[in-house]
């Protein structure tokens, strides 16, 4: 299988404090890769290495080699001698990201998807309605909101908002999807919905997910990356080959006291 992500000796420091120290990994271009670890171990930072979102915070230094396959073979993401990476907006369009809490823009459902489409993807106005509809269908939200496209997105339920955030990322036709604890702020029912959706999406996109729950990691992950103290300590391949108890042993915590 081709690799979607290649990382070699990646270090990230904020104001001189190391957060990620020497991570190397190769992730294939289908299925769900789950990064787990205790809070503060650097997993979110590692995820944000891939779309260079760490650079939005002051005092960040990233080193190491990161290559992504964004549809035209592996390409370097960070500037290096002799390498001119894609401009940031284009990189971030091709690497979709969904956050912990649903952060819909306080505009209508339609505009939540349309504004990024118009500004980032420079989508022509004539195709706009179709592409918004397609994105909403992809996340199974179309039936719920087709009548109410112009109501404020904040009126949706939590699970619906999170799916809208996914739709917003998918509308830009990314090559990779990053998910930062996508169900952390959702209730049980909404979590199940989003997990189901992610499993379907995993057939079309490489998904890289940070998870806060061992159960979710075991059920969803095609491979698990265990992080500790900024380093990648274990890599487990294949779904359900480990138990929660083994995994919590690796993390050094009791399963009920998780993260």
């Amino acid at each position, binding site marked *: 299988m081709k690799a979607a992500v290649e990382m070699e000796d990646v270090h990230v420091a904020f104001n001189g404090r190391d957060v990620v120290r020497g991570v190397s990994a190769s992730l294939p271009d289908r299925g769900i890769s789950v990064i787990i670890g205790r809070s503060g171990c650097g997993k979110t930072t590692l995820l944000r290495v891939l779309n260079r979102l760490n650079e939005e915070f*002051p005092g960040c230094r990233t080193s190491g080699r990161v290559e992504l396959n964004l549809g035209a073979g592996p390409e370097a993401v960070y500037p290096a001698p002799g390498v001119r990476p894609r401009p940031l907006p284009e990189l971030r369009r091709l690497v979709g990201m969904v956050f912990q809490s649903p952060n819909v823009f306080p505009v209508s459902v339609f505009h939540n998807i349309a504004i990024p489409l118009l500004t980032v993807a420079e989508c022509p106005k004539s195709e706009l309605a179709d592409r918004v509809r397609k994105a909403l269908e992809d996340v199974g939200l179309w039936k719920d909101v087709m009548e109410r496209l112009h109501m404020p997105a904040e009126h949706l339920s939590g699970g619906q908002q999170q799916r809208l955030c996914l739709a917003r990322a998918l509308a830009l036709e990314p090559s990779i999807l990053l998910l930062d604890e996508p169900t952390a702020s959702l209730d049980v029912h909404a979590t199940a919905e989003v997990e189901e959706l992610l499993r379907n999406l995993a057939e079309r996109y490489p998904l890289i997910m940070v998870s806060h729950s061992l159960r979710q990691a075991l059920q969803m992950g095609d491979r698990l990356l265990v992080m500790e103290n900024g380093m990648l300590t274990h890599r487990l391949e294949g779904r359900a080959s480990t138990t929660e108890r083994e995994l919590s042993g690796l993390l050094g915590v009791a399963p009920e006291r998780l993260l």
Partner: protein
Amino acid sequence: MKPSSSAVPAEERGASGRDPARSVLRFAAGIAVLGILLLFLMIIAFALPVFTEQSAGGPFSRIWAPGQGQFGIQAMIAGSLVLALSALCIGWPFGLVLCCWLFCPVNGQSGFARSARSIVGFLVRIMTAIPTVVYGFAAVFLLTPLVRETVGGTGFCWLSAALMLAVLILPTIVLLLSAGLAPRLERLLPGGLALGFTRMDLMWFFVLPEAKKTLFSSLVLGFGRAVGDTLIPLMLAGNAPQMPYACSAGLRTLTAHMAMVTSNEVGGAAYNSLFMAGALLLLINALVSLCACRLECSSRQERKGGRR
């Protein structure tokens, strides 16, 4: 941590490389800063020659009698300081107790108490919008007869102006104090009430003794507001160019003096005193700002340190 776009090197930022909004906004900020600099430079440049050239009847001397070539503004300096301080003496304690009353309903929250508090709170906000000239106008016809009958004189005197200035700075003080005190009280609330304290007890025993910086910065900013007002002293203080000596006697502040010089005199040594007075006001208020900024910075650090 707060995201900032400045962390990303400019040349990598957009497809076009340059961010047009950034330069437009920087231009706008430049205009604003230029305006501020120009203000300071102009006033200092006009006042500087007056500071350096000393002559007998110059602005530093004591007596203001333009007819006899005497252009001293010492009396106005004293008038400004005395008037502002006396207004502060009335307005600040009033503001403090008012602020405490607003945040400390005594026994529970009865419907009447709550609506009374929201009415007074609203009134304080409204007061920030009342033009000082309207205060002055009303006081000329309401307050001055009252003062005339109580303490004698014309009614256009130190006392009238101080009372009105106290009303003027009241909302400033109340709002500053409530911004500083209310969050501290909130933090104490559930625990403190559970121990059997009333809100007023908490305010008195725990919040006020710990909030010296907030109290002091409201004092300083209130002083700045009082010393800078023009219309109330001009309309109420009588404007006699003399050292303030009694609360029924008139006095003249720097601000009122400036307003009178521009309308009555043309050029010459009188203008020197004008720029002198302007520069002094500039200086006083710059000091007030610096002082308040210091206090705010250090109290913010304190709060941050306390939370960790």
